[in-house]
């Protein structure tokens, strides 16, 4: 399984803080994103935003980063700390 986390406005928009996806068919982040977008219109829109950031195992990652069983993937909007 892959553990997926959502933060801040994205978490609120999806009404979901975390979920797990089976790793079958997930080669990279873009495939994880595509699988999530299948969950419905709301998910398709929210995860399709160009400014969304992705972290793989708590480090910033890109669409082509490879995922494997046990990985933690997080999607979040641009950060606004400080």
């Amino acid at each position, binding site marked *: 399984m892959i553990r997926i*986390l959502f*933060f*801040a*406005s994205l978490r*609120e928009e999806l009404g979901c803080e975390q979920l797990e996806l089976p790793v079958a068919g997930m080669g990279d982040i873009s495939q994880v994103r595509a699988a999530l977008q299948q969950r419905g219109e709301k998910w398709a829109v929210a995860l399709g935003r160009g*400014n969304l950031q992705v*972290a793989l195992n*708590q*480090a*910033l990652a890109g669409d082509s980063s490879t995922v494997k069983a046990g990985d933690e993937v*997080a999607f*979040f*909007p*641009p*950060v*606004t*700390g*400080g």
Partner: protein
Amino acid sequence: MTVSVEVRVQEHEFDTGAEFGLLRADNHSDGATTIFVGSVRDFNSGDPVTALALEYYPGMTEKVLADIGQRALERWSLGRVRILHRVGQLVPGDDIVFVGVTAPHRQSALDACGYIIDLLKTEAPFWKKESGSGRARWVESRASDHEALEKWR
């Protein structure tokens, strides 16, 4: 004295005087200490702010802060680096972030302090939600924060 990077993410207030003391304790080789503290303003982009909720990504946030501190250590000759950030519920006047740097020379301490806060603003996973005028809104990231990175390239 060995160089060090300390980072902390916490709900409770921090004490800037005490943090300064930790930067200076038994540190007679660094002549310069620079501190940056960011606080909650009562207005943002013209809208009144009465409360601020800060969310973060436990685990990743601490790693990113430590990594930013480490990059500062590699770029300048520094002694100690301390980065603290509050999360949870805050009100105007509360301090959110503390960046403290010691160095043998002042320009390194000043530059490293600016570098750390500029990187923190664009890389560390924190998100602010402001309340005011009866509604809550997620704060948008600023183009100016990304432009500020230009000077470190």
